[in-house]
């Protein structure tokens, strides 16, 4: 089947099998490797990206269902050299360790902040509860979201 999908502002047309999952389309057809795959059952959220501004678990959706839609992945988070505040927050607060859950987690967090710029801790915890992280114990992810909320578009982060 022919699909045309806009990813991070760039339009891509491909002839694909109808059964292909969106996560595989993004990873294997478009070679955008930041979107990860971590389970078979839509539980982990490693594959989270946005479809028309809504966070979606891309392992739960067929690529053909995204035909004509606009997708944003982790590669589309930063503005060129400037990291998005949520990316800075993760770095500032040590919200990542192995980094495997991080892209999906950040896509969820960014969407959370867009809908609710000043979430409470409880709202953050509920908001990220569909994304599993095995490394961080979540505390620093919560802090990263709070950091991004307090620094909506700011200062340099040093490496």
């Amino acid at each position, binding site marked *: 089947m022919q699909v045309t999908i806009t990813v991070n502002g760039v339009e891509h047309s491909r002839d694909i099998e109808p059964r292909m999952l969106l996560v595989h389309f993004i*990873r294997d057809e478009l070679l955008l490797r930041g979107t990860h795959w971590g389970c078979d059952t839509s539980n982990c959220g490693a594959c989270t990206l946005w479809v028309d501004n809504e966070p979606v678990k891309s392992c739960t959706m067929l690529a053909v269902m995204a035909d004509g839609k606009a997708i944003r992945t982790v590669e589309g988070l930063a503005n060129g050299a400037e990291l998005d505040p949520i990316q800075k927050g993760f770095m500032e607060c040590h919200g990542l360790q192995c980094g*495997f859950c991080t892209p999906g987690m950040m896509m969820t967090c960014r969407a959370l902040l867009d809908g609710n710029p000043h979430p409470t801790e409880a709202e953050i915890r509920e908001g990220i509860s569909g994304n599993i992280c095995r490394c961080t*114990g*979540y505390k620093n992810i919560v802090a990263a979201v709070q950091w991004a909320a307090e620094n909506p578009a700011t200062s340099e982060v040093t490496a």
Partner: protein
Amino acid sequence: MTALDEAPLSAAGNPIGFGRMHRKEDVRFLRGEGNYVDDVNLPGMLHSAILRSPYAHARIVSIDTSAALALPGVHAVITGETLAGLGLAWMPTLSYDTQAVLATDKVRFQGQEVAFVIADSRYIAKDALELIDVEYDALPAVVDAKKALDPGAPIIRDDKEGKTDNHIYDWEAGNKADTDAAFAAADVVVTEDILYPRVHPSPMETCGSVAHMDPVTGKLVLYTTTQAPHAHRTVYALVAGLPEHKIQVISPDIGGGFGNKVPIYPGYVCSIVGSIVTGKPVKWVEDRAENLMSTGFARDYHMNVSIASTKEGKILAVKVDVLADHGAFNGVAQPTNYPAGFFHIFTGSYDYPAAYCNVKAVYTNKAPGGVAYACSFRITEAVYAIERIVDCLAAELKMDSAELRLKNLLRPEQFPYTSPTGWEYDSGDYEKTMRVAMDIAGYDELRREQAEKRAKGEYMGIGISFFTEGVGAGPRKHMDILGLGMADGCDLRVHPTGKAQVRLSVQSQGQGHETTFAQIISHELGIPPEDIEVIHGDTDNTPFGLGTYGSRSTPVSGAAAALVGRKVRDKARLIAAAALECSPDDLEWELGRWFVKGDPTRGKTIQEIAFAAHGSLELPEGVEGHLDAQVVYNPPNLTYPYGCYICVVDVDPGTGQVKVRRFIAVDDCGTRINPMIVEGQVHGGLADGIGMALMEVIAFDEDGNNLGGSFMDYLLPTSMECPDWELGETVTPSPHHPIGAKGVGESATVGSPAAIVNAVIDAISPFGVRHADMPLTPANVWRAIQGRPVRTDMAVE
């Protein structure tokens, strides 16, 4: 300067040495530019999938692969028979047992590897699996370890000549006679059956590999999810007879390991064979069900634990009887002389003279594994046993569990302390750490609140765990894996402009080595950490060493890094003396600079020395040019981190629901290289504790069907189950480690489950409950309250 001083900052604002700094590795992960194994794409690469056994125990009658082979896009189908022709149907495990790569005679657990399909895409490979026709003759399965040695039990390992039962080994430690005597003389004896059920590390990234055997050069490049690249390279050389200098193992970014990525799995071997057979690179990446059902599980220890004490609560002796379920192949990864890992550190953090344990290991029709999930070689089971039984003793004595612990903790003047089972604890001030934890918790206030709540019929519980670990395996005289001594190398090159590269044998899976090892070199040489590149995960470009597991990176490789830095510093002194035309003895070191004693204006910075070392300066006799060094570190002893954890829970007795309200963790891991990273390691381990104590279990039904084969059934903690961790610290440096650091990567996973379970049992003790097995799901708590506990590792009717 000492390890504990505040480090000066570099121009970029990073500590020159130890302290908090952002991780150097973060930016690539934040941008989605990490390079995990599944991200590796080689030209012409093929994909693969594994056909797995639906049965726990069955004889293979026949395998027909013709329809699969006929499917367009399929390149090859490999079976056990194919491998047998190459002598590769079986491979050695890390415990001197054997494991089937692809089954030839029988399948021995559900999910065992039976055939390997190589195709143009993952989708086609999976389609082809459906077309393979395997005829099985089902056999009765051994599911319950307690029945594995029953007369007439089916023999699982009939591949081993003369094997007539399912016994693997018996092992003991401590002094039985002394322990029996202490028990006979004790006022109080408490005994409990305690199960540490089978759980799974399940890192977010599953296991996989991309193998490329170059048909022209005969060089094998293997990208793979391994925590121990060098050990894997050597094992491939030994198993497959491949020349070791023609094997390059690359472990790129690893998406979490937790011990799951220590063993060699059949999929890795199959991808290598697949590349040899097709002449193309072959990628194999397992899915989550495969990860949960077939790769290294953890624990599965059935423990009978007894403690003896005086009526005042002075502990006299402890003994533990263990039945260890190792699954169908003894694939545990631990030092050779320690078949039960470091379990015999179960004597814990207390002062008493007598202890004894024996461990009996058996085969069952379950996946192999056992040592994984941040267990520090079975110390998790050991800590759980002692910390649970101490609480049972407190209940028996009607004594506060903190008071009982304080009465028995080792005292600072007892260190170095030799335990009744032969461990030499290096340093500690246990009471101080426990008091810090109790202060943060507001322990007395919590007990008052609990009493008030109880009077109102509300069930709040407070649980304590005090743990001691021995990590950093280990002295090569005692510790090896498959004959490879557990020492690790480190190479340091300081380039002419004073920027440096350090090469490690250990492998980060998220621990932040690219940052902390730069900080160690920075601490020794005064080079800013941003000027130091850490290179790891590629056997062609790093020195030999056994890798990262058992919290060994900082104790072993961290020591190697500090010493290689010192070696370069010593050489820099000779070069500086030549440049300053003075004797090396006249020079004094300050961070980043050698200068003339009494005349601090005359000196050379490490950067100036680096340039001189590569320049035309005439060097003294015996001093080679350049500023490089190599070290192999053979640790004299393990390091012994410890900590005190306190958990507060609220239990709803109507539903059995447990809410973890607070969790206080005070760790003492000696010197902290980067406190931010240490805290992150602790947070992650505490979440593991929530998972194991309350949610996670790989249970089986009576036919050996795995009941935890997906994240729908194997429940991992989310942000909702984890409280806002409250951390504290004490710092008692290791006396024998060059920078005084101890391992910390697994401390919280090891120490936290007991605190959580102790809290839940404390909450429901008014119902007469003294023990209940993990996981304390609502159903299991409710059953315990009703006085009808069930085996948590078996299917419940």
